[in-house]
């Protein structure tokens, strides 16, 4: 007898871990693929963005650390694409066959990271977002293979975070123009991180991902977790962010309207231009300025290499 939605949800409520596609309903599988694909694409597309900044590293040592982070991100992407492969998807097509706009990474990784400072802030903000988003399923997810894979991912992301935070402190202590540069990076990257967590709960509460316990926390809970790490870090560094802790509400509140418009050419948030979430989704769909460049960087040689083999087998395999 096929598994009913209700029976599966009941099992999950009792703490049962789903281990294979045979134990899933179509609805569960669809929701799982969706969330894994976002993770895989996020890890994958962080690599070319970080690489762009790594080329501006100020020393051999710092370039080395940047490469170590890039390798980790590629490794995490690989692990996650393997999970998708186990669900019957074609890993090779997902990485090399899709069009740039089909990748599901957040808007932040469609942006150019142009300096060492932007890499540092990305490690402190975006990798923090990654940790917040991934420690939730690591603790709560009902999909066993994902939970186990996240143990390694979590550990390595902590290293990236430390890299980002140590460097942010170091750069801010240097003061002067260097600190101003950090401020400029934070000015566009902080709201980018805030938006990363998506629609607030009062607009969207119940999702399949929560019902199937693929993750355990809501968008607002996750955003608060992120803010509670990032805002104090910036305050400690003497860097201004448009958010503060509100004693009465017992949580962090933003000092600007979420969502609002963004000018990617100038890397500037337009706090005086509030927009709707539908407009945000449209902006995400239009993709950021480096989406095509990054995807081409990853796919170009695969295409050339496959062409060389003249269709007699693909470039991939092992």
């Amino acid at each position, binding site marked *: 007898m096929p598994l009913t939605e209700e029976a599966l949800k009941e099992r999950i409520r009792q703490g049962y871990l789903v281990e294979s596609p045979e134990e899933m309903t179509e609805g569960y599988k669809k929701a799982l693929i969706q969330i894994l694909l976002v993770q895989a694409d996020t890890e994958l597309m962080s*690599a070319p963005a970080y690489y762009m900044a790594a080329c501006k590293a100020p020393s051999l040592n710092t370039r080395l650390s940047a490469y170590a982070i890039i390798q980790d991100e590629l490794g995490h992407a690989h692990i996650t694409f393997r999970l998708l492969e186990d669900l019957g998807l074609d890993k090779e097509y997902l990485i090399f066959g899709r069009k740039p706009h089909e990748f599901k990474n957040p808007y932040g990784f469609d942006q150019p990271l142009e300096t060492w400072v932007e890499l540092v802030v990305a490690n402190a903000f975006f990798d923090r977002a990654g940790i917040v988003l991934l420690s939730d399923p690591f603790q709560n997810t009902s999909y066993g293979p994902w939970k186990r894979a996240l143990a390694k991912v979590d550990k390595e992301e902590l290293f990236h975070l430390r890299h980002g935070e140590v460097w942010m402190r170091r750069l801010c202590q240097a003061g002067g123009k260097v600190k101003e540069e950090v401020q400029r990076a934070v000015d566009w990257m902080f709201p980018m991180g805030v938006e990363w967590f998506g629609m607030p709960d009062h607009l969207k509460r119940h999702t399949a991902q929560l019902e199937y316990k693929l993750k355990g926390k809501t968008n607002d809970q996750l955003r608060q977790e992120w803010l509670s790490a990032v805002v104090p870090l910036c305050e400690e560094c003497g860097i201004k962010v448009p958010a503060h802790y509100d004693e009465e509400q017992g949580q962090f509140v933003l000092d600007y309207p979420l969502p609002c418009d963004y000018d990617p050419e100038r890397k500037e948030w337009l706090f005086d231009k509030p927009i709707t979430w539908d407009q945000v989704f449209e902006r995400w769909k239009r993709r950021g300025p480096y989406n095509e460049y990054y995807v081409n960087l990853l796919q170009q040689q695969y295409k050339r290499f496959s062409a060389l083999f003249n269709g007699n087998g693909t470039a991939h395999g092992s």
Partner: protein
Amino acid sequence: MSQREFQNPTELDERTRQAVYDLFLVLADTKHLLGLRYGEWLGAPAIEASIASVAMAQDEFGHARLFYGLLGDFHQAGVPEREEKPEEYRNFEGLDRAWESWLDFIAANVLVDGALSVQIEALRGSSYVPVRRMVAKIVQEERFHQQHARGWLLRVAREGAKPKAELEKALKRIWEPVLLWLGRPGSEHERALVSAGIQDTDGEGLRTRLIERLGPLLVEEAGLDLPLSNDAITGQWVLGTALSWEGFDDAFRRRSRTGPDPETFRQIESFLGHAYPVGS
């Protein structure tokens, strides 16, 4: 052959000191640039290969960092620091610009990485103690590079006539410069390095070791058409290439002192003239 050990460049005579400095700088720059080139392959034809490329890039940077680290003592002993200009860089000439295809990657992975290993292994018993202490670790890490190179080489060579021919072309593009890179017979540099026991053989000896390794892989296993053959009587591998030493600079181990192209050098220049507190 000297049985002495040297802890510091001040213990070396001037001619040897310069030769050792030149060798370390060549190794440091070559590994630095090889790391840059490997690191460019985020978009290798398979994600496993991208991961391996970035991993190998880090190894090269790690080794470059160790060799650059040896130079400080030489500067203290009076060897002038080099100017940060492209033409002062002593990287292997095949690393001056970005590789065009993954086949160039494989070719360098086999030949450049292979030649580097042979050169560094010759320092295993070096009389210069600070370098001798690093060799085992470097050699340990390079083993993976050789496995990676071998795996891709054989896969492409067995894929069909066209990929095989393209691979041969990529190998031939750097064939002669790699062989030259190991050193010119009878040069003052070589004599200094060998007589002070810095390395255990001269350039000719290194070349023999390299082709003894390459022959079985390139010719026997991969069936590639390269100027390399096995002598039926002695069983040794013999080079069919007459090496042309014209313009070869013994201190730079390259035929022209152009250094990395502007696009590459911009990445190195990012190390200079910034205001960031990079520390030690």
